[in-house]
């Protein structure tokens, strides 16, 4: 295998791993919205009310 072929193989292997990672992403860290912001959204979108539901429980620290 020439150095160029080795580089191509290595690059392709990296791509395969990156493709797999991109196709199976972990859930992004989220910032929970303040209920007041959701209320503003609900008011601006007519009949929406579900976004006014109680906040989703935040992950416990520690």
């Amino acid at each position, binding site marked *: 295998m020439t150095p160029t072929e080795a580089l*191509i193989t290595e*690059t*392709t292997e*990296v*791509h*395969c791993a*990156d*493709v*797999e*990672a*991109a*196709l*199976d*992403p*972990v*859930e*992004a860290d*989220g*910032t*929970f*919205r303040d209920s007041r912001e*959701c209320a503003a*959204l*609900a008011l*601006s*979108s*007519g*009949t*929406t*009310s*579900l*976004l006014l*539901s109680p*906040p*989703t429980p935040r992950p416990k620290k520690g």
Partner: protein
Amino acid sequence: MKQSGTSIRLTGAVQDLATEVVSALRGGDHLRLAESLSVRDETGPPGDLALAAVRVLGPDVLLPAVLRIVPPDPDDLAVVRKAVDAFPPSADASPTSRWSHWAMRHTLLRLDPPLDDARTDGTEPGAGWLDGVPWQFLTHQLAVLAPLALPADDSALTRAARHRPVDVARGFVRAVRRRDWLQAAGAGRWLTLLDGVPDTLGLEGGLEFVAQMGGDDPRVALQVQAAQLLRAGAAR
């Protein structure tokens, strides 16, 4: 988590490709995937990064043709076929990777049926990994597989989604509240196809909000655009 250089380039290539798909969905432009194969790459073999981007974006690369906004372009189909062959799921691949790969083959067969029975979309992956999972995980996985949310498609995955519309609606709300716009857009796309979604969800307004807040990411814009097109199609 820190991304590798290749991963960052791949993310950029996927976003560029998503931009092109959104443009095609909005204006009927062709993608010209074959051209992108020759110009996108900087470090790998010719077209490697672009092919990887096609594989990651999955069947949505052909969404303008699936929704009959543009006719299928034989060159685009050839590129997608090449990506499918270049990046098959590994032996230990995730269910989402397997489903994405299957869906690309399925879409190719849908748009370009072979003259003989030589090519098939293969065995459909199972959806057992979603049995009884919490609604948060269900929504995340469905959002990752949002390109499979298409009308008239019946698979184990779509059946799993149809059984839990309220859970997906809850997941949509959670994603919005977490500002996870990509997940919200993907979940919203699924919700446009499901019966039994609570009217109180306000999906239409929610999708507009997601587009407004997260639309700078072309992948979000693509899912919202797809959802709105599917919703409009369902309303006709």
